[in-house]
C-alpha cells in the first residue's frame, strides 16, 4: 500500500530535506474560512497537512486547540462537514497528504466502516487518533489499514524501548513523536532531547519520524528538522487564527493571509535545515 504520505516523504528524501507538517482545526472559525486556509497552506510551504476534527473534550490538547475546536463546533462544524472540506480541497490539490487528527468518539458515533469509506473517498490519507493506543487497535487501526489509510501513532517520552515495538507494530505513513510529556502548546521542545529520542525510534523503524508539540518559531522548527524527518506546528498556527478574528470571533480579511505568512516563515525555517540522517 502506497499513499500520498509515502510518496511525499520519498519525494522529500530525494530533495534532501525534512517535511513541514501544519495543523489546523477544521471549521475554525467557519467552514469557508477554514477551507481557504487549507488551500493556502501548500502554497505557503506546508508539505503535509493535519486537520483537527473538533471535539468537545480534547484531553491531550491545551487551551488554544481546545478553544479552536469549540469555535468550530459553535460555527456548526461536524465530522461529515470535515470530510466534505477535504473533498473540496482535493478538487485543486491531489498530492498534498491530508491526515485527520482528533479523538475517537465522533468516529465511533459516525460508524467506523462508513467513516473509513467516506474518508478514503474524500481524499484523506492518514489518521492520528489521540485516545486509541495500540491496546485498542481492533477499534480503528486495523480496519483503517485494511481500508488503505495510514494509521499514524504517537510515540512519547514515556514510550520506552520495551514498549516501542508495540507502538510501531501497526503504524504506517510516519511516526509522530510527541516531544514533551504534556498537552499541545504547553512547553518548548528541547531539540537535543528530541534528537536523541528520534535516533532511538529510528533504531526500531524505517518509517519517517516527525516531531510535534512545543514548536512555535522558525528557529525551533529548523532545529527540530535537523534531526527529524519532519516538524509539526499546530498551536502557533491556531493562535494566529484567533488573533485575526473580530471581536465577535468572526473571520476578518486578514485571517487567511496572517496564517499564510506564519506558515511561510516556519516553512523557511524547516527548509533551512539539513536533512535528517536516515
Amino acid at each position, binding site marked *: 500500500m502506497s499513499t500520498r504520505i509515502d510518496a511525499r516523504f520519498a519525494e522529500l528524501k530525494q530533495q534532501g530535506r525534512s517535511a513541514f507538517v501544519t495543523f489546523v482545526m477544521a471549521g475554525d472559525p467557519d467552514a469557508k474560512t477554514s477551507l481557504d486556509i487549507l488551500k493556502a497552506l501548500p502554497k505557503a510551504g506546508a508539505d503535509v497537512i493535519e486537520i483537527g476534527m*473538533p*471535539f*468537545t*473534550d*480534547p*484531553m*491531550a490538547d*491545551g*487551551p488554544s486547540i*481546545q478553544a479552536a475546536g469549540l469555535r468550530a*463546533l459553535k460555527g456548526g462544524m*461536524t*465530522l*461529515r462537514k470535515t470530510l466534505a472540506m477535504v473533498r473540496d480541497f482535493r478538487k485543486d490539490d491531489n498530492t498534498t497528504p491530508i491526515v485527520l487528527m482528533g*479523538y*475517537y*468518539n*465522533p*468516529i*465511533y*458515533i*459516525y460508524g467506523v466502516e462508513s467513516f473509513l469509506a467516506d474518508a478514503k473517498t474524500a481524499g484523506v490519507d492518514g489518521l492520528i487518533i*489521540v*485516545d*486509541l*493506543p*495500540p*491496546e*485498542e487497535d481492533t477499534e480503528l487501526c486495523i480496519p483503517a489499514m485494511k481500508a488503505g489509510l495510514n494509521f499514524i*501513532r*504517537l*510515540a*512519547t*517520552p*514515556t*514510550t*520506552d524501548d520495551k*514498549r516501542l515495538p508495540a*507502538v510501531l507494530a501497526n503504524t504506517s505513513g510516519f511516526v509522530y513523536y*510527541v516531544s514533551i*510529556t*504534556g*498537552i499541545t502548546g*504547553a512547553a518548548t521542545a528541547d531539540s537535543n532531547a528530541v534528537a536523541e529520542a528520534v535516533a532511538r525510534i529510528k533504531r526500531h523503524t524505517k518509517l519517517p519520524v516527525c516531531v510535534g508539540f512545543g514548536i512555535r518559531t522558525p528557529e525551533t522548527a529548523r532545529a527540530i528538522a535537523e534531526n527529524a524527518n519532519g516538524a509539526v506546528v499546530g498551536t502557533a498556527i491556531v493562535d494566529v487564527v484567533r488573533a485575526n478574528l473580530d471581536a465577535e470571533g468572526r473571520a476578518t480579511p486578514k485571517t487567511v493571509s496572517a496564517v499564510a505568512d506564519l506558515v511561510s516563515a516556519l516553512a523557511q525555517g524547516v527548509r533551512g535545515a539539513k536533512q535528517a540522517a536516515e
Partner: protein
Amino acid sequence: MNQNLPNSFRSGPDERGHFGIFGGRFVAETLMPLILDLEKAYADAKADPAFQAEMNVYLKDYVGRPSPLYFAERLTEHLGGAKIYLKREELNHTGSHKVNNVLGQIMVARRMGKKRIIAETGAGQHGVATATLCARFGLECVVYMGAVDVERQQPNVIRMEMLGAKVVPVQSGARTLKDAMNDALRDWVTNVHNTFYCIGTVAGPHPYPMMVRDFQSIIGHETRKQMQEAEGRLPDSLIACIGGGSNAMGLFHPFLDDPSVEIFGVEAAGHGLTQLHAASLAGGRPGVLHGNRTYLLMDADGQIEEAHSISAGLDYPGIGPEHAWLHETGRVKYLSATDEEALAAFQLLSRLEGIIPALESAHAIAKLSELAPQRPKDHLMVVNLSGRGDKDVPQVGDILKARQK
C-alpha cells in the same frame, strides 16, 4: 432476559479491561505506560496479604468501619411497605463512601513511590477524601474542581484547603465535573513521572473501574454480613444513586450473583428526562470518553453534552462501564429521580429519621418512596446512604428560603 447471560456477573472485567463491549483503555500514549504499571502494581497489592491487613487497620481505626446497617423504623412506617435499612456510609470519616476508595488508591500510590496526588471532584466529597488521606500520609495534593462547583460547594472547598490541598477551579466548558476530569487528565499527561491520578468513581481507563469497585465492595460485603445478623437472610432489594456509580457498584457487586436480590440504580433526571438531566443510561448511548467506552450524553455528531443535576456529585454525562454492561444484561434496573424528587426526599429523611442526606443519596431515597410501598412488609430493602448532607445545607437552604418568599 437475553440468553447470552454470563454464568457470573462478578467475573469482569476481562484481561483487556472490558465488561462486554464497555470499559477498555482509551487514553493518550503518554499515559499508557503508567496505566500498565498501575495495573501491575494493583495486581501485586491485591495478592499481598500485608496490603489488605494494613488497609483493614486504617478502615477500622481511621475510616470508622464497619458502617452501621440501620433499620429506619419511622421511614418504614411512613412508606408502609418494605422494611427499610440504611447502609450508613455517611458516617465514615470525611462524610461519604469516597474515603474507602481513596484509602485504597493512596496505598497503591505509596507502593508505586508516587509523591504527588491529583484528583477531580464534583461535589467535593472525593476531593475532601483525597485531601484528607494526602494529609495523613504527607503527600502533595491537587484537586481539580469546576468553577461552578467551587461556587455551589463552598464548605467542601474550605475543607480541602484546610487539609492542605490546592483546589484548582476549572474554567473550561460548563465548568463542572466533566471539565474537571479533562483538566486532571491534562495535568496527569504533563506530570506523569511523579503523579498518581486518584479517580473518584468506577470510570476511566482500565484498571480504574475494577480497582475502585474492589475498594468500594466493602459496602456490599458488610451489608451481606450485617443483614444476616439482623434478619438471618439476604436482603430482597438494594437501591443506590448513580453518577459515575461507585457507591452503587460497591453495594451491588457482592450481590450480583444472588438472583433473589433485586437491584436498582438511580440516575439524576435533573429537570426531567426530556430536558436537562444527567441520566446517561436513560438518555444516552454508548460512546468513548475519559478513557472508557460507556453510555454518554451526546449529540448526533458524537460531541459530549453537558449534564445537569441539582447534585454536583451526579452532574456528569457518563457512567461507569460496568453499570453500562449491567444495564444491557438487565441484571440491574436503572431508574431516575428529578431534582424536585431528590429535594423532597432530602427533607423527608431529615424530618423522619434525623439524618440529613447528601443530595446524591437523596436521589436513591426518592425512588425508595416509589418502590417500598409496592413491596410486602417482610421485604428487606437496603438503600445506600452514600454521603451526608452537610455540604448541601447552604444550597438547599437557599432554595427553600427562595420558595418561602
